[in-house]
């Protein structure tokens, strides 16, 4: 049996994380670096990415790279892959974490909004994974983790552009998994509501709505970004060598609404 250190060490690994200036991607960057990996912090917000990378390097003593990348622009994905290879020489893991969606009344979306959401939440992950595949295939226990969302598996008429794109992402992951074993593993973390500061507010929530949302979870709270990062880390680790094509729900036990609602 391998020791716990052998199972969960990421020394010598190079991991690209997208949307990593944000809450969940940033937490993943800190976690993987603390376990020994060189992380590439990529984000549309280039300054944010560089700042997070500098913090990670200072904290962990392992070199991290911050780089501006718009995940929906293919030429920028080429640059991301090239820069990673020049700097660290390989790609052992990828976390396709970019994603976002705003509340829209179900009949008020349109082609442009639907397509934009698909490009951001689904196609960008496909394009980057495709570019990383030749390098991932060379590395032991290489794997790709995707940030899925509970809105992609439950009816979510409030977020129709986002929820349908996230549903597509899950199917993409399963398809990649069945054809890419044994060389590369593909898994999704299915995320419940996680406190990411202003981003949730920008998606249409106010503090009172967030309080009620917290109450709806079996665990009576929203998640912390690091709790999602822990799941990503488990799925990428040597302990998960025989896990591919699955969705790991990290969602506070799910939500539950009583059929006998109390007045409040």
């Amino acid at each position, binding site marked *: *049996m*391998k*020791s*716990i*250190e052998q*199972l*969960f*060490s990421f020394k010598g690994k190079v991991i690209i994380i997208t949307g990593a200036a944000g809450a969940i991607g940033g937490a993943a960057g*800190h*976690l993987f670096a*603390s*376990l020994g990996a060189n992380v590439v912090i990529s984000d549309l917000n280039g300054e944010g990415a560089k700042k997070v990378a500098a913090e990670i390097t200072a904290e962990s003593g392992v070199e991290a790279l911050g780089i501006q990348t718009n995940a929906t622009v293919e030429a920028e994905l080429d640059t991301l892959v090239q820069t990673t290879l020049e700097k660290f020489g390989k790609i052992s893991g990828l976390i396709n974490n970019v994603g976002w969606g705003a509340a829209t009344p179900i009949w008020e979306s349109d082609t442009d909004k639907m397509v934009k959401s698909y490009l951001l939440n689904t196609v960008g992950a496909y394009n980057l994974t495709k570019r990383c595949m030749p390098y991932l295939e060379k590395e032991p226990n290489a794997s790709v983790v995707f940030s899925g969302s509970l809105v992609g598996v439950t009816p979510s008429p409030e977020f129709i552009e986002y929820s349908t794109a996230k549903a597509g992402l899950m199917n993409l992951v399963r398809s990649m*998994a*069945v*054809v*890419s*074993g*044994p060389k590369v*593993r593909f898994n999704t973390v299915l995320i*419940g509501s996680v406190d990411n500061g202003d981003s949730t507010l920008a998606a249409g929530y106010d503090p009172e709505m967030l309080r009620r949302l917290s109450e709806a979870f*079996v*665990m*009576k*709270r929203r*998640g*912390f970004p690091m*709790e999602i990062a*822990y*799941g990503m*880390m*488990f799925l990428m*680790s*040597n*302990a*998960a*060598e*025989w*896990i*591919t*094509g*699955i969705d*790991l*729900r*990290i*969602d*506070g*036990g*799910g939500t*539950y609404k009583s059929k006998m609602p109390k007045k409040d």
Partner: protein
Amino acid sequence: MKLNHLFDLSGKVAVVTGGGNGIGKAVCMMLSRAGASVAVGDLKYEDAQHVADEIKAEGGKAIAVACNVTVDEELVNMVDETVKAFGKVNVLVNNAGGGGGGRENPSKISVDDFAWRFKLNVYSAWRLSQLCAPHMEKDGYGSIINITSMSSINRSPNMSAYAASKAAMNHMTANLAMDYGGGKIRVNAVGPGATKTAALASVLTPEIEAKMLAHTPIKRLGEVDDIAGAVLYFAAPISEWVSGETLFVNGGGVQTLD
């Protein structure tokens, strides 16, 4: 963040059923290496003793308990013995189980045999959860992990009793997660695909293995450590916001025979 901190179970107490061999043994060793004191329960007391001795030889803490999970008094006794030895219970791994292997021809299996699978796989896990929950509640940290099976969502020939009992475990997992709610006690399940143990060896031939791998993206059968690693994730505080989940560890495929 230090690794031993992320997976630290020191000061925690684990109960594992069917801990004398196979997956259960790997789980006992893994939880011990993460720092937990382990009560190794098994129908075969000697096998449980061997595992407890191995743990102690590595510097861990363990006791062996004779426990047939289909006998209620023995379940009660195992929890009592654990609390007597270690003062509490934090982690319960319902691993003892059986049936399956394509030996459940619907026109031949008896009512008693069908019921026995539910008694062994479902009832024992429910009863032990009931017995351990008050101790978990009291200590403020509880994680129950049910070992179900890939067969719970596959369609396989001559597996209706075992598969249905394991599907019942998945759903019981989700329901108990809600009942215990609130964060102190989490309930999750790990669903192994075909994993190399004595139980599998009793039905495995090279031809069957080749057929199984034909549907498995990661081209090998499971090792007991693959399952134990997933159990460790659910046992450790890093999965504090995860409950009601069934995680399949199956090489990405189904190891059905056609």
